[in-house]
C-alpha cells in the first residue's frame, strides 16, 4: 500500500473529476454552476463571506463525524479488515449518547462527559461484536458488519416511533429535542462545537501517532499485512483484530454522539447520515494517511451540506448531490482499484514465482 507513485494518485482523481463533470453535463446544467452553489451553500460565496458563519458551522459539524469515522477506519484497514459495520457503530454511539441525554440529569459538564463516554461505549461494543463474529464465529467482517448496520438502523426507528416517541405523536421525524444541558456547547449563532472539533482532531493525531511511533500500531499493521507471519512471530492476531474493531468503534461512537447531541440535537432515523460509508471513501482517497483525512473529509462535508441548495437555485433535484457522491465513490474506487491492480501486476512481473 505504500508503493504508489504519482500516477496512481492522479488517475483516480482524474477519473473522479471527469465523471463528475460528465454527470452534471448530462443532467443538463453548466458544470460550474452546481459546483459554485455547493461552495456557496457550504461555506459561502465568496468563501467565508460575512454572514456565512452558520453554514460554515454546519459544514464543520458534518466534517466531525466523517473525520472521526475515517480515523477509525484507518485502524481497521491497517489490520486488514473492511469495517462496513462502521455505520452501525456510529448509530449505536448516537443511541447510547441519546440514552444518557434523555435519562440522566446532572450538572452540564458531567452530563456532556457522560454522553461522550456513552457514545464511545456504544460504538466500541458494536465494533467488538463485529470483531467477535469474525474471530470466534468465522463470519466475514463485511457480512457481520452489514448485518449489524441493519440491526442498528432498525433499532433507531423502533426507539423513535416506540419507547422514545415524542409525547403524543409517533413520528419518524425523531425524538424530542434533548435538554439543553445535554447538548454540546456551540459557538454563538452556529452549531459549531469546538469540543467536537477537538475530539476529531485528537482522534486524527492519535491515529497518526499510533502508526507512526507505537509498537501496538506496528503490530496491527503486521497483522493486516500478513496474518500468518504475524501469528508465527508470536503476535496474538485475534486480540489485535478485536482491538482494531474496538478503536474504530469507539471513534465511530463519538461521531454518532456528535451527530445526536451536537448537530441534530435529537435522535433521528438517519442519524448516521451515511457518513460511515463516506468515510470508507475518504480513507481510500487519503491512502490510509491520517492527516489527509482532514481536507478530504472537509471536501465531502461541503458536498453534503452544499448540495441541499441545488434544487432551490437550479432546476436540479438536490438528490443530484447524492448521485454526485455516489459517482465520486464509484469512480474513485475504480481509479484506485485500477492503480492497485497495475502496481500489483508490475510487482508480479518483477518477481514471478
Amino acid at each position, binding site marked *: 500500500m505504500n*508503493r504508489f507513485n504519482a500516477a496512481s494518485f492522479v488517475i483516480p482523481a482524474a477519473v473522479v473529476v471527469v465523471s463528475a463533470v460528465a454527470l452534471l453535463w448530462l443532467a443538463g446544467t453548466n458544470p460550474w454552476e452546481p459546483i459554485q452553489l455547493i461552495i456557496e451553500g457550504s461555506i459561502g460565496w465568496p468563501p467565508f463571506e460575512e454572514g456565512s458563519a452558520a453554514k460554515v458551522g454546519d459544514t464543520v459539524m458534518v466534517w466531525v463525524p466523517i473525520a472521526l469515522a475515517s480515523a477509525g477506519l484507518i485502524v481497521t484497514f491497517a489490520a486488514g479488515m473492511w469495517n462496513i459495520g462502521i455505520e452501525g457503530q456510529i448509530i449505536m454511539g448516537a443511541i447510547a449518547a441519546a440514552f444518557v441525554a434523555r435519562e440522566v440529569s446532572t450538572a452540564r459538564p458531567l452530563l456532556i462527559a457522560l454522553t461522550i463516554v456513552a457514545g464511545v461505549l456504544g460504538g466500541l461494543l458494536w465494533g467488538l461484536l463485529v470483531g467477535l463474529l469474525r474471530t470466534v464465529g468465522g463470519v466475514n467482517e463485511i457480512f457481520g458488519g452489514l448485518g449489524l448496520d441493519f440491526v442498528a438502523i432498525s433499532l433507531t426507528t423502533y426507539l423513535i416511533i416506540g419507547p422514545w416517541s415524542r409525547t403524543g405523536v409517533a413520528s419518524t421525524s425523531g425524538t424530542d429535542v434533548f435538554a439543553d444541558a445535554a447538548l454540546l456547547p456551540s459557538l454563538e449563532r452556529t452549531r459549531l462545537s469546538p469540543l467536537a472539533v477537538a475530539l476529531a482532531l485528537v482522534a486524527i493525531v492519535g491515529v497518526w501517532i499510533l502508526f507512526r*511511533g507505537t*509498537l501496538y500500531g*506496528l503490530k496491527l499493521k503486521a497483522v493486516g*499485512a500478513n496474518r500468518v507471519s504475524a*501469528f*508465527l512471530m*508470536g503476535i496474538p492476531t485475534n486480540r489485535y483484530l478485536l482491538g482494531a474493531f474496538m478503536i474504530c468503534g469507539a471513534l465511530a461512537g463519538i461521531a454518532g454522539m456528535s451527530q445526536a447531541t451536537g448537530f441534530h440535537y435529537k435522535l433521528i432515523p438517519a442519524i448516521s447520515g451515511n457518513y460511515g460509508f463516506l468515510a470508507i471513501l475518504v480513507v481510500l482517497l487519503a491512502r490510509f494517511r491520517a492527516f489527509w483525512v482532514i481536507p478530504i473529509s472537509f471536501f465531502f462535508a461541503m458536498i453534503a451540506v452544499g448540495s441541499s441548495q441545488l434544487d432551490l437555485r437550479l432546476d436540479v433535484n438536490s438528490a443530484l448531490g447524492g448521485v454526485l457522491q455516489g459517482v465520486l465513490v464509484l469512480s474513485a474506487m475504480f481509479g484506485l482499484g485500477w492503480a492497485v491492480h497495475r502496481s500489483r501486476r508490475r510487482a508480479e512481473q518483477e518477481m*514471478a514465482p
Partner: protein
Amino acid sequence: MSLELRDIHKHFGPVRANDGITITVEAGTLHGLLGENGAGKSTLMKVLSGFHAADSGEIVLNGREIRLASPQDAIAAGIGMLHQDPLVFLPFTALDNFVLGSPGAIRLDRRSAAAEFKELCSRYGFNLDPDTPARLLTVGERQQLEIVRLLWLGAKVLILDEPTTGISADQRAKLFGTLKELATEGMSVIFVSHKLEEVDELCDRVTVMTRGKVVGELDLPVPPQQLVELMFGQAVEMQDRAEVDLGGPHLRLSGVRTASGLLSEHSLSIDVHAGEVIGLAGMEGSGQDTFLRLCCGMRAPKEGKVTIAGRDLTGKHYHDFLDANLKYLPAGRLEEGLIQGLTVTEHFVLTGDDTSFFIDWDRARGVAKRQVEHFTIKGTEASTAESLSGGNQQRLLLAMLPPRLSVLLMEHPTRGLDIESADWVWRQLLARREEGTAIVFASADLDELLRYSDRILVFFSGAIIGELDAGATNVDEIGMLIGGRTAPIHRGELAP
C-alpha cells in the same frame, strides 16, 4: 500417437522450471517421468496439457507441430491430463461429470452419452454407476471416471500425474491393467511419479528429471540404484563437523498420533536432544510438515504427549511453545515468516525484546543496521522484506531469531538459495547447535540431509518408515526409502 517435446523452456522469473527438455514418447508405450519435488515434472506436464505456455520449444504430435494455448486446445489435439486430485465436481453425478467437458454449450444428448459411458466402462471393466454423485466415489473411482471422460473426448495421449496417491492396492492394480491395455490399443501414456517401484513395474521407458533438466532416459527395467543415482546424484562425502555433546532432551514426542490423515496410523515417539540435528526426508506432503506442526503446537495430537525443554505443552497454544524458546520457520519465507510492506527495521522491532509502547526509531534503526551488517544481508535497514532476494530473506529470518533457542524447527532451510547463502545458513545453524539448540529440519535435498543431520527420519505416505543414523547411511538407502522401498537393498544384490 507419438509425441515429441523438443527443447522446452519455461522460466518463472529467475527460476528455470524447465530448461531445455527434450522427450520422445512412442505411440503405444508407457513412458515414466521420474524426479524429485521441484524437478520440473509438473511444469512440463502443465505445458503439455495447455495450462502454461512454454517460453520456447516445440510440441510435436504425430510429426506435426501443435500450439496449445489452453487446456481446450490440448484436449482437442488429443492430449488428456489426469490430475493428481481428479477434477470432478463432487455434487454432480458420474454421468454429469462425464458430459461436462464435452464441446458445445446447448445440445446435450444425455441418452447417447449414457450409452457411451456404459460402453466405455464395460470395455475397461470399470464398475461405475452413472447416477451416483461423484462425492460418493472413491478417489480410484473418480480416476476411472476421468479416464473414460478423457477417452470419450478423444484423448490419444494420456498424462497421469502421481495417480497412485490415495488409491487402494486393488484399484492400483486395476489402473495399471487399464493403462497397459490402453497402450496396446496405441495410446501413449505418460506416467508422472516419484515412486521408483511403480515406474519400474509399469513403464517401458523412463525419463529422469532434476532441477529442470533431463538427466537420463532409460529403457526399463534397470536396477533401481541406477534410478536413485540419477534422481539424487552421487553419494556425497561426509564433512567433518564439530563434535557436540548431546544434552538433555529438548523436544520429546511420546506416543503422539494425529486424529486423521497424515501421521494418524501409528503413534510415534522421539527425543531430540540439545545440540542434535534431525533431518526429515521424504517427498513433499508425506507428513513432514504435520510432524513439525505437532512439534510446535500448531496441530494438537489426538493422543500422546509433547514436551519442550521439560515442560509438558500437549494441547497448548502455539504461542506457549514460543514462550518455551521454540521457533518454527516454515518454507514460505515471504508468506509464513516475513511481512510484505514492512521494512527490515520494522521486522526487528516486531521480533525484538524491547516491548515499550513507543518505538525509539533511532535506536531501532541502529539495531537493524548492525544486524544487516552482521548477517551480511544485501539491502539496507529501510528495505522492504519483499525487495530482498530469497537468500537475503532467509538471512533476515535467521537474524530475527532470539538468542539461545531450545528448539528450532525449519522447512527447507536452503531451498532456492545459491551455494554461498546455503553454506552461510548452515554455518549459522551449526553455531546454534553448538550452543545447545535442538534442530529439526525438513529438506528435499539428500546431500543436505546427510551432511548436516545426526539422525534422519524418512517419511512416506504419512508415516515414518525409517530412522537412520546419518553417519551410517547413504543416498541410495534414503532414496529407496523415500520411494517407498522399505527393505534396504544391499550392494551387489541387484547388480547385473
